[in-house]
Structures are given as C-alpha cells and as structure tokens.
C-alpha cells in the first residue's frame, strides 16, 4: 500500500482504520489480560510461562497490526518490524547459547 495512485476518495495517503476495529482489538486485549491472569493461577507445569508469553505475543501482535497500522502499511514497514524482532531474538538467543551450555560436560 505504499503509493497506489489514490484509489480511494481523496488524496489521503494512509489507510484509516475504523473505530469498530479499534474497539474489537481493545476488547481482545482486555480478554487477553484476564486470560493471562487466570492462567497464572492454574498449575500447568512448563506450560505456565509458555502460555503467559504466548498471550503477551498475541496481544502485542494485535497492537502492532491494528493500533500501529502495520497490517495496512507498506512492505518496508513490515520488514522493519520483522528486522527488529530478528535482532532482538539474535541478542537473546545467542546470549542464551552461552548460558544453557555452560554446565554441559562438567558432570
């Protein structure tokens, strides 16, 4: 959606997201918050942190896609977001490669 020769009404560049979508996302975020609190009180073993992070990722994705308009943005913007996530994972992942394997072989 970078610059199609204004196919809708006026020469209005960005896509305008309707308040209805905002409201739906808002409700979804509230539900997600409730779910994550409830889930933390259930004994799920290793699934507890996975579910907590999964819900957080889902919520963050909703915010990025709709509140921050990435769903309606150009490929460049999408690539920008992805490159940020990629570098963040490189930082976490490559650091963890040291921490998880420090004790290996020393037993």
């Amino acid at each position, binding site marked *: 959606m970078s610059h199609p020769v204004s196919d809708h009404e006026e020469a209005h560049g960005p896509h305008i997201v309707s308040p209805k979508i905002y409201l739906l996302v808002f409700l979804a975020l509230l539900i997600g918050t409730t779910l994550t609190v409830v889930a933390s009180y259930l004994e799920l073993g290793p699934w507890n942190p996975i579910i907590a992070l999964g819900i957080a990722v889902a919520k963050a994705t909703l915010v990025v896609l709709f509140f921050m308009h990435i769903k309606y943005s150009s490929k460049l913007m999408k690539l920008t977001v992805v490159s940020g996530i990629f570098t963040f994972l490189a930082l976490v992942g490559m650091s963890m490669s040291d921490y998880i394997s420090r004790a290996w*072989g020393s037993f």
Partner: protein
Amino acid sequence: MSTILSLPDQSTARIPKRNYLTNENGILSWLLTGDHKRIAILYLISITFFFFIGGALAGLIRLELLTPQSDLMATDTYNKVFSMHGIIMVFLFLVPSVPATLGNFLIPIMVGAKDLAFPKINLLSWYLYLAGGGLTLWAMITGGVDTGWTFTTPLSTHYVNTNVVTTGLAIFIAGFSSIFTGLNFIVTIHRMRAPGMTWFKMPLFVWSHYAASILMVLGTPVLAITLVLVVLERTIGIGIFDPAKGGDPILFQHLFWFYSHPAVYIMILPGMGVISEVISTFARKRVFGYSAVAFSSVAIAVFGFFVWEHHMFIMGVSNYSTLVFSLLTMLVAVPSAIKIFNWAFTLYKGSITFETPMLYAFGFMGLFTIGGLTGVFLGSSGTDIHLTETYFIVAHFHFVMVGGMLMAFLSGIHFWWPKMTGRMYPEKVSQLAAVITFIGFNFTFFPQFLLGMLGMPRRYAAYPPEFQVLNVFSTAGASILGVGYLLPMIYLVWSLKYGKIAGDNPWQATGLEWQIQSPPLTQNFIEIPVVTQDAYDYEWLERQKEHEVTQLG
C-alpha cells in the same frame, strides 16, 4: 606519474559565488543550520579536535613505553591515559569519523536528494555528539577514568573511584548521536532517492553506509541500556552485574560486545565505501562485481550481530558456545575477503593513477588485509587463548582501525576535499604525507604483533626489559606516524586559502556529487536529477562531456 589533474576546466575554473559556504553568514547560520553539508563540516572540525586529543594521549602512551619501568607517569595515571585514549578514539573519533563527515556531506547528494530526511535531527545529533564529547573531556579533566574503554564490570562498578558515571553518561549521549545519524541515513536512502536511482544504481559508498547504519540503529541502544545499568549499579546499587548480589559480570560482557563488536563494522564499513569510490575513480573502471560488493556490506552487517562472543573466549563462557561463535567469526571473513578481491580485480587492467587518495586506499587494502587475517588467529578459540590480552590484539585492532579506517578516512577527505571546499590540496606534499603515514604506521604497530607473540600483556605501564627493543621501534614509528597526521592538518587548512581552484570534477569521477558545482549549492541540485546511468559508468561520463562540448560550441 600520470595524473588526471590537468583538465580543461581546471585553469579557467572559478569558485561559484553562490554555494553552501557563502549562502548565509554569521556564526548562528552555522550553529542553527539544517544543511547536511554544513553539519558535516561542523562534525569534521569537532572530530578532528577529538582525534587530536586522542592522538596526544597515544603519544603519551608510547612515550611511557619507551622504557621498561613506569617512569614518565604513575601506573594509575597510565591506566587513565590509555582508557581515555580508547574511549575518545572509539566513540568520539572512529564511530562518527566517515559517516558523520563524509557520509553526511555525500549521501543526500549521491542519492540525488536536497538534504537528509531529518535535517533537525541531524543537527541534534551533532549537539549530542558535542555534549557527549564535552562530558568526556570534563570526566578526563576532573580525574579521568581507568576502566579501559570497555567499562568492564565489576572493576567499573565496584573497584575504581574514577569518573565512571560521568563517562558512562557521556558515551550514552554520544551513542544517541550515532543512532540519529544512522536513522537519518536509512530513511534517506530508502525514501529520498531521485527518480531512476534504483538500489543497484547507488554508489557503493551509499550501500556501505546503509549497512553501517543498520548496525548503528540496532546495536547502539544495547550499549545505552548496558551503560545505564552500570551507572545505576554504581549510584544506587542495583545488582544486575554484581556478583556479590547474584548478578553475572559476564552478562555485562555479552551486552557490551553485542554493540561493540558490530561497532567495529560501524567503524570499518563506511571506510570500505570510501575505498570503493576511490579505487574505481583512479583505476577508471567500474567496481568489479558491483553487486557482490554491495551485498557483502549487508552480509557483514548481518553476520556482525552473531560473532560478539569471540571477545570473551577466556572469560569463562561455555566451550560449546565458543565453538559456535568461533565458527561464525570465520564466516565474517568471507564478505570482507570478497571486497578485497573485488577491489583487486577492479585494479586489474585499469588505468591506474597514483593521486593521494589512491595511495591511502592502497595503504588501506594492505593494512586492512593484515589486520583482517590476524583477526582469524584471534577468532580461532585455540590461538585466541594464547594471544588475547597481549599486544597481538592491540596490533590487530590498530591495523584494522588505524591502518584500515583512518587510512580510508584520510583517503576520503583528500578525495572529496575539492568538492567540500572547492580547492585542491597540494598534491606533492600530500603524497609525501600518505607515504609517511604508511611507513610510520608499520613501524609503530608491526613490532606489536611480535611483542604479543612473545607474550607482552597489554594495559601495563611497565614490562620486562627484553621487550624494550621492539617497544623503542614502536615508539619511534609513532613519532613518524604523528608527523604523517600533522601534515594533512596543516596543508589542508593552508589549501583553504591558497589551494588551486578545483573545478566541478577534478577526478573525472562519475558520482552525482561530481556533476554539480564545487562547493555545492545549499539545495545541492538546481533540478532534481533523473538517473539513467549505472554507478561508475565512465562511458556515460564521456558522452556527457561530449554533449556539453557540442552544446557550448
């Protein structure tokens, strides 16, 4: 020596009355400017100032190491001197050197834009740089800092009583200056290109700055938060890196080197961009394997984020992780080698002339190759254990940073000096300076490889007497090197008034920046150009000239 200086427009050339230097007058027109070219000049003056201070400190270090005893200064003073040398040279000279001066000046012109995307942020970045630099100087005057440029914890958080907090904040601020420069470049390169200027028509200078900018934007914030945590640990005593409280000092190393290894590429990539331009111009050939060189810049940037642990092999990190990082480190050698080979192939059958920028570029190629290859020794975890924390490492990174980056910086400054000022530097004396620099450099740093192999540790004011001969060599070389750096400072200033008038395109180079007047107009182009030619298309340049002649005739 054949030269391309004797061109028809040279004798009749005049400095155009209207250019970015004469557009407005008064000190405020400089301090509040949004013009990327003026900001580049401001940066050039300020980084030269810090280079001078850093260089003076280097001189002190070499003087102290002339004798085995610590006699010139006390050992703790020596610690402060080499720490300040490192901090000033890395954060206040090398990181901003090419991007903030040449990059600022040239990138908008090279992509055919009137300015960078965010002129105010560009100016802000200069003020942040000044604030960071000023704070660093303040820290130096009021007692200095002696942690080394790496702020290693727990030394920096617990055991020293020097100005770690001030310096940490100074580097935090200077870091944001670098972030804003990088951000501006990325946005400009993506969004401000002239019509027809596709990605693969851009000069390689722009590509390498693009890659370096990615590293600046994504790496620097990690350094920022790390320094914030160090400062918080020193001031209010949070325990993230404090082993007494359960923190892990090695985590500091991970976070610090997550930035500071890519920072090495932030420093060298723009220099590689300069070399691509210079080699092509003075060999009068298109850069061999243009797209390979372009992609190798991006590859260096991406790999750059995956190798940082090779700075930490002896710090007690996991052996398995060492293995992975050691392997990945070897991979970075590939794109760097691609560049060197492609430059060499560019020279093959080129019509080479040996003007000063080319001499510096040759210096770069030789010294950077040695620096890079010794990096392979250090990236292999086995030899690294023997060589790390010795003078081998000092020699290695000085070959890359000084022999590589500083040579590229000087090459670029000479190359674009006619464009920036409208006047030529004096050719003969500058060739002499380039040769002196090369000789002095090798005298200074080659003996340090030997010292390192013999086991002389870095960061000590005193050393066993058997190392003295090589150290005297090194100090003698440093004095030659000092002359090599002072000469350009003198004759470049001299040339501002007395240099020959350069004309628009003294090198007959193909970049967009050479097709406009020198010095350029404030808005760069009278009319935004439509780009149809490839980068480094010398035939296109010939046709342009013929076209001009027929039009005038």
